[in-house]
């Protein structure tokens, strides 16, 4: 028995070397042609073959050494760790984890000012701080929060009700175009159109819901995917209304209780006697999307404790059992679709107000896939997990643009953004191997008799459609 249980350290090392060499060889075989050679056109328009042995060597070394380290050190270490963990009694959640949502919320509330303060200190001037913060508030803050909100909206459909929706971006588009069209044609204000966009999207959600209710699983996914594409193709081809691929530009900006964020004398900056800057609008937008996202979260949390929210989750667990308990699964699914779509619509109208320009380009399938990926990575049903996933995924891709040092390694032609999707996919694989149920797989029960205990992810189901 002993020979089975104990593996000698030597053999681990030998095994690691073997596997490392194998991984290196595999990487060499795989990248030999792809990375090792590159065809370029020279000045005379001739095709020349460049050899990139250095780069190839880096790839092979990373694969080989990585595999070696994994086998020799990381796997034994993690096994030992999990063994120790098993011995220890399940601990209470740490104080940090418990209060994480509060800390996170506090940080989000002060984020723009924090950025301005830091940059002010860094640049030494207030204007420098303001202008410099533009990028961080807009590209990081707002961009991430839009995806957080979209993912939280989709979470109602996918995470709670267990209906796999691959066309969620359609509702985002409906929201964006209803704001864009109604505002440019009728001059209606953002605050009126925001709820209307939500209602329109919810209606579209119900319209989509009706025909697809009988479908489950793969079939539902395909139909929702098609629905997303149909909406996009309509936007492209119905040129009379949507101006097709040109998109709609010059969409009115949102106002703060009627105060516009324009440089004029009635503008926000002038009224408050602040120096002129575009950053106020961005900060305003930041708080607006933060508010909308928090609204989504609040509604989700409240709904989960309502009978309807519980019915959604029950629907995800077992539809037939739901029906046997007298629950009308048709209306339950429709409400899930409509509620999810509504938040998509809100986010859409916000998007239109932020960009001032909408075109079908923004509503491609890839967007649906990214939103869904965030929901899955975050752990279906978990708001905190999804927020973290959105920050990592969207923030990560934004960060790639900032990584100048990569050019020094891979040469000046290297554009990290091009590798965005590759890294995105890689990150997904890593997370799914490491935590198959997403960052926060545990589910918080909606009611309790004695003590609220988290439900381990091994019991929850993903739903069948």
């Amino acid at each position, binding site marked *: 028995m002993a020979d*089975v249980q104990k593996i000698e350290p030597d053999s681990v090392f030998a095994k690691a070397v073997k596997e490392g060499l194998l991984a290196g060889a595999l990487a060499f075989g795989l990248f030999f042609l792809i990375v090792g050679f590159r065809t370029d056109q020279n000045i005379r328009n001739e095709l020349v073959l460049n050899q990139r042995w250095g780069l190839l060597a880096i790839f092979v070394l990373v694969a080989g050494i990585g595999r070696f380290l994994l086998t020799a050190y990381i796997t034994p270490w993690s096994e030992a760790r999990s063994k120790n963990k098993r011995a220890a009694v399940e601990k209470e959640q740490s104080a940090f984890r418990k209060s994480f949502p509060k800390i996170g919320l506090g940080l989000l509330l002060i984020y723009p000012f924090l950025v301005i303060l830091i940059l002010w200190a860094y640049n030494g001037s207030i204007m420098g701080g303001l202008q410099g913060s533009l990028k961080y508030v807009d590209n990081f803050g707002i961009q991430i929060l839009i995806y957080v909100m979209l993912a939280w909206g989709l979470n109602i459909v996918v995470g709670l009700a267990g209906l796999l929706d691959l066309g969620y971006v359609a509702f985002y588009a409906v929201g964006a175009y209803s704001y864009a069209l109604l505002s440019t044609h009728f001059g209606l204000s953002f605050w009126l159109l925001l709820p209307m966009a939500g209602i329109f999207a919810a209606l579209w959600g119900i319209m989509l819901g009706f025909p697809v209710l009988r479908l489950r699983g793969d079939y539902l996914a395909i139909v929702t995917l098609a629905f997303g594409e149909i909406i996009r193709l309509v936007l492209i081809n119905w040129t009379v209304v949507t101006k097709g691929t040109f998109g709609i530009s010059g969409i009115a900006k949102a106002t703060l209780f009627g105060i516009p964020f324009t440089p004029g004398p009635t503008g926000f900056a002038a009224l408050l006697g602040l120096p002129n800057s575009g950053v106020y609008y961005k900060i305003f937008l930041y708080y607006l999307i933060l508010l909308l996202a928090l609204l989504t979260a609040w509604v989700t949390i409240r709904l989960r404790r309502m009978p309807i929210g519980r019915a959604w989750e029950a629907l995800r667990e077992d539809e037939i059992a739901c029906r046997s308990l007298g629950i009308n699964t048709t209306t339950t699914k429709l409400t899930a679709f409509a509620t999810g779509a509504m938040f998509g619509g809100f986010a859409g109208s916000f998007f239109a107000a932020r960009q001032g320009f909408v075109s079908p380009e923004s509503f491609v399938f890839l967007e649906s896939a990214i939103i869904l990926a965030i929901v899955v990575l975050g752990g279906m049903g978990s708001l905190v997990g999804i927020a973290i996933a959105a920050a990592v995924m969207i923030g990560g891709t934004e960060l790639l643009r900032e990584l100048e040092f990569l050019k020094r390694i891979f040469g000046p032609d290297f554009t990290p953004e091009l590798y965005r999707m590759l890294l995105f996919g890689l990150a997904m694989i890593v997370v799914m191997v490491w935590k198959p149920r997403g960052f926060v797989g545990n589910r918080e029960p909606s009611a309790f008799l004695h003590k609220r205990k988290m439900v381990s992810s*091994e019991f929850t189901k993903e739903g069948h459609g």
Partner: protein
Amino acid sequence: MSEKQALLSVEGVETYYGNIRALSGVTVHADPGEIVALIGANGAGKSTLMMTIFGMPRARTGRVVFDGKDITQLPTHEIARLRIAQSPEGRRIFPRMTVQENLQMGASLDKLEYFDEDSRMVFDLFPRLKERINQRGGTLSGGEQQMLAIGRALMARPRLLLLDEPSLGLAPLIIKHIFEAIKELNKTTGLTVFLVEQNAFGALKLADRGYVMVNGIVTMSGSSAELLANPEVRAAYLEGGRH
């Protein structure tokens, strides 16, 4: 010990689900041509032991030896190729395949010439399946699915047959038939059977030997008659109605 000649021996096996230990130091064995019953309350780990023999989940410590070969680390499909067949918990038939196709899936891959003979044997045992031969597995009733699961396991011409609650959801008459058939197969072909049952009385009646499992530990073992006579066993598993 009888380790040398035992067909299956499970030695000090511990199995975990995540961090929860389901089996702790389980040692059982089955000699060739024996029927061994494993009884115990729901959740005691009986089915886990069945699945551990099949490598799903794998035993974390200890080993499983089949016919002198250590199969603890073998992948499940290779374990099955050693002609160990199982009628698992929850039936696990192929719902979209017909009864015939399900049986074909169970048939041993290297001995195709026996297919007709074996399927005849299964249909003799369960005439109901013959009536339903072209029906999809998923449309069978619960009890018929159970018959199909047992039939599929028998199609593999197993040397060791693992049955997880074969009587579940079956009519009393059918249970009697199945138990008789197992006995018959055991007598004529020397088939070794390892059996998990909730119906402890029936199982011990059928088996030569039995084990009692409580909370992942084998607490008692002995010949069926001994166990049947044991007041503790009787108090815990036999009373409350025979079947």
